[in-house]
C-alpha cells in the first residue's frame, strides 16, 4: 500500500453502494477496503455477502467473467434482499459453474438455451408478477449469447420494458467453443475464425456492434457499461439498476486470459488499460440519454493495451507497428470525443 491517493469526488447517485471516498493505489484502481469505514466498504468486504457464485467452479485462472459475475450477482443479491432469480445463457459461465451434480450458484438459477436468456427471464418475471411476488430477475450471458444469437430475444425484452436486468459479460468472442469471432470482437483481434493470416490478419475493421448503444436506442430506463478493473463502480451500477423497474442492461468488460492470449495475472491490468486507452467507454444512460461517463484518469496509447495480448501480436511483428494500430487509436479517440472521456468526473 504505497502512494495511496485520496480523491474527493462528488456523489454520483444517492444510493448505498456509492462510495463517498475513492482510493487509488498507484498503478491500479483497487480501492483498499481496509482504509475506509465499514459502511463504505464494498459488498465483497462484508461477512454477510451472499457469495452467490461460490468457489470451486471450473473457470480458468484469471477469468474476468467469474470475477464480474460474482461481484455483479452479489451486489444484486444484496440489493434485492436475496430475493433474486437468475437466468443464464449457454456459455462459459453456465458450463464452468454447473456440471451436475455440482453447482456454484447459491440462488435459484435456470439455464435453458444459448439464445433465449432474455426471453426466459421475461417469463420468470411474468410468473413473479402474476404470483404477486417481489422476487427480482436477472438474465446473464456472454457477448456471443447477447450480441449475436440472443440479440432478438434481448431486443424484444427491451422494447417490452420487461422487468429484467440483463448482464452481458463481454470477453469479445466465443471463448467457450474455443475463441471464435463474435460481433463484439474488436478489429484486428485474432480468433480461431479471424486468424492472423493474410494481408490483413485478424478481425476486419468496420464490422461488429456495440450493444450498449443499441440498448440506449430502446429508451429503456437504465443502460451501463462497467469493467472488472473498477469493481466498486460495477457494484454501484448493479445496485442502481436493481433500484429501477423495467428493462435494464449492464455490459461488463471481462478479459479472457485464454482468448486474449495474456497471463492470468494481467486480467485487471488489461481491463483497466481497455478503459484508459478509450477503447472501452464506461458510461451510464437513462431513458435513451447518456447521463454519465467515467473519465479516463491517465490516458494511455492503445498500443500499450494491444501489446500485452497475443491476439494482437501480428500488429507488432518485427518490432514495427502495423499501420492498423493507428486505426485502432482513431477508434479510441472517437470514443473519447463521443463520450467526453477526458477531464473531470461530473454528470453530463
Amino acid at each position, binding site marked *: 500500500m504505497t502512494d495511496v491517493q485520496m480523491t474527493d469526488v462528488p456523489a454520483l447517485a444517492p444510493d448505498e453502494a456509492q462510495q463517498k471516498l475513492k482510493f487509488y493505489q498507484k498503478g491500479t484502481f483497487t480501492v483498499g477496503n481496509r482504509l475506509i469505514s465499514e459502511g463504505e466498504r464494498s459488498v465483497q468486504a462484508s461477512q454477510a455477502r451472499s457469495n452467490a457464485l461460490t468457489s470451486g467452479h471450473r473457470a480458468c485462472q484469471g477469468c474476468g467473467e467469474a470475477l464480474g459475475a460474482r461481484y455483479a450477482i452479489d451486489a444484486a443479491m444484496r440489493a434485492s434482499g436475496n430475493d433474486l432469480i437468475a437466468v443464464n445463457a449457454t456459455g462459459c459461465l453456465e458450463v464452468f459453474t454447473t456440471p451436475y451434480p455440482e453447482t456454484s450458484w447459491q440462488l435459484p*438459477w435456470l439455464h435453458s438455451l444459448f439464445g433465449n436468456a432474455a426471453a426466459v427471464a421475461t417469463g420468470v418475471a411474468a410468473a413473479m408478477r402474476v404470483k404477486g411476488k417481489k422476487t427480482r430477475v436477472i438474465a446473464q450471458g456472454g457477448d456471443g449469447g447477447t450480441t449475436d444469437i440472443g440479440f432478438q430475444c434481448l431486443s424484444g425484452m427491451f422494447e417490452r420494458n420487461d422487468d429484467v436486468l440483463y448482464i452481458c459479460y463481454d470477453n469479445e468472442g466465443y471463448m467457450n467453443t474455443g475463441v471464435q469471432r463474435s460481433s463484439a470482437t474488436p478489429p484486428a483481434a485474432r480468433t480461431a475464425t479471424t486468424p492472423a493470416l493474410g494481408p490483413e490478419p485478424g478481425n476486419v475493421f468496420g464490422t461488429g456492434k456495440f450493444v450498449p448503444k443499441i440498448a440506449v436506442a430502446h429508451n429503456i430506463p437504465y443502460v451501463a457499461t462497467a469493467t472488472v478493473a473498477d469493481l466498486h463502480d460495477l457494484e454501484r451500477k448493479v445496485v442502481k439498476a436493481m433500484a429501477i423497474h423495467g428493462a435494464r442492461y449492464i455490459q461488463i468488460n471481462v478479459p479472457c486470459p485464454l482468448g486474449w492470449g495474456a497471463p492470468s495475472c494481467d486480467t485487471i491490468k488489461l481491463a483497466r488499460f481497455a478503459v484508459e486507452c478509450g477503447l472501452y467507454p464506461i458510461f451510464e444512460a437513462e431513458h435513451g440519454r447518456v447521463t454519465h461517463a467515467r473519465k479516463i484518469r491517465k490516458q494511455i496509447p492503445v498500443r500499450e493495451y494491444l501489446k500485452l495480448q497475443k491476439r494482437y501480436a501480428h500488429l507488432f511483428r518485427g518490432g514495427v507497428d502495423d499501420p492498423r494500430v493507428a486505426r485502432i487509436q482513431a477508434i479510441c479517440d472517437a470514443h473519447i470525443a463521443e463520450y467526453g472521456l477526458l477531464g473531470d468526473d461530473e454528470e453530463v
Partner: protein
Amino acid sequence: MLKQIEGSHAMAEAIALCRPEVICAYPITPQTHIVEGLGELVKSGELENCEFINVESEFAALSVAIGASAAGARAYTATASQGLLFMAEAVYNAAGLGLPIVMTLGNRAIGAPINIWNDHSDAMSMRDAGWIQLFAETNQEAVDLHILAFRLAEELSMPVMVCVDGFILTHAFERIDIPEQAQVDAFLPPYDPVQVLDPENPASIGAMVGPEAFTEVRFLAHYKQRQALRLIPAFSAELGKIFGRATGGLLRTYRIEDAETVVVAMGSICGTIKDTVDEMREDGVKIGVVCLVSFRPFPVEALGEVLAEAKDVVVVEKSIAVGVGGALADNIEGALRNLEKRPRLHSAIAGLGGRPIPRDSLRRLFETAVTDPWEGPHFLDLNDRVVGREIHRVRKVRRSGSTAENILRQLALTSQLPQD
C-alpha cells in the same frame, strides 16, 4: 354451454377456463385466432391473474413459457408450421427440462414452397422432441383435449402439444359445448410444480449433464411418457363423466367389428373417412376406421388390439417423410409387427398443403388397397401427368428452374387446353 362459435375461439375459451397464468402470443396462420381470443379475454378482464405477453418470435414465445413454467406459473402458447420450426430448439428444451407447458399447434404445411394450408408436416417434425402429441378430430374434441392437456402435462411434468387441423378446425364455426368453470375446476387442480425457481430454496435447473447420466435422463423421459398411455384413458374417462360425453382416449374406433379393412388416420380427416366407411358399409364392404388421438406416446398395444383381426390396414396421413414415406405408417407397422395374423399395411399420403381429400378418392384408395395393393407410399390424387412432364423437362434442361413455379406454370397452361 352450447355455442355456435369458431373453433379457435372455442379453444381460447377452453384454455381460459384452465386458468393459465402466462400466455405468450405470436401471430402465425392458422393459430392466430386462438391467441387473439385469449388476448381479448385477458384485456377485458374476463381472464384474471394472467400475463398476456406479445413476444417477438415463436422462439421467444416458447422461451417465455419455459421461464414462466420453471418459475411455477401455468404457461400456454400456440403456434403452427414455420413457427414450430423456429422454436424447435426450445421445443426440445421444454421437454428436456420437464416443464408442463401446453401448446396448441394449428397444423399447417411447412415451406418451401410456402403454403399456409393444412397438413401434419409441422407436428411430425417434432415427433421425437419429447412432447405428448394429441390430435383432435373435431372442435369439440379440441376443446376437451386442451383441458385434458393441462392435467396430463402437470401430472407428468411434461409438455403437451394439442394438434388441431389448421382452417378445417381452427376457422370452422360449429356448435360446440363450452364447459362451465366449475366443471373444469373439478377436473384440473391448481398447478403444483415438481421443480420451481424459489429464492427460499434455491436450486440450479438446466445444468450440464455428461455421458454418465444422459442415457438415464432420456430413459426416464421415455418411461414418463409411456405413463401417459395409462393416464390419457383414465383422465379422458374422468373428463367424460364430468362433461357427460365420451372424449379423448388414446384412440377411437368406428365400425371396426368384423372389419376386414381398417383405416388409420389422425385429426379432422377421420370425419370424412367415417362418412366413406358408412357409404362402403351400405354396399356391404367390411370396413372400419381407427382415429388415433395420442400420437405421442404411441399406443402400440392399443393399436395392436384394434388391428389384430384386420386383413388390410390403410394408413392415411397428411405428411411425407421425404425419402422414406409415411411416418405414421412406419409407426403403425411397429404396432402390427407382433400380431399373430399380421395384416397387410398400405400407406397413403393425402391432403398435403391443404389438398382436399374427397370421399370418392378415399373410397377408390380403400378398394384398391384390397384389390390391387401398391408398393411404398401412395400419393392420393397425385397429378401424374404434371409430375411426368416435369421429370422429363428437368432431364432435358440443366437450368430447369424452380419445381414449384414450373408446376404452377404447367397447371396454368393445361387449364387453357381443351380437356381430353
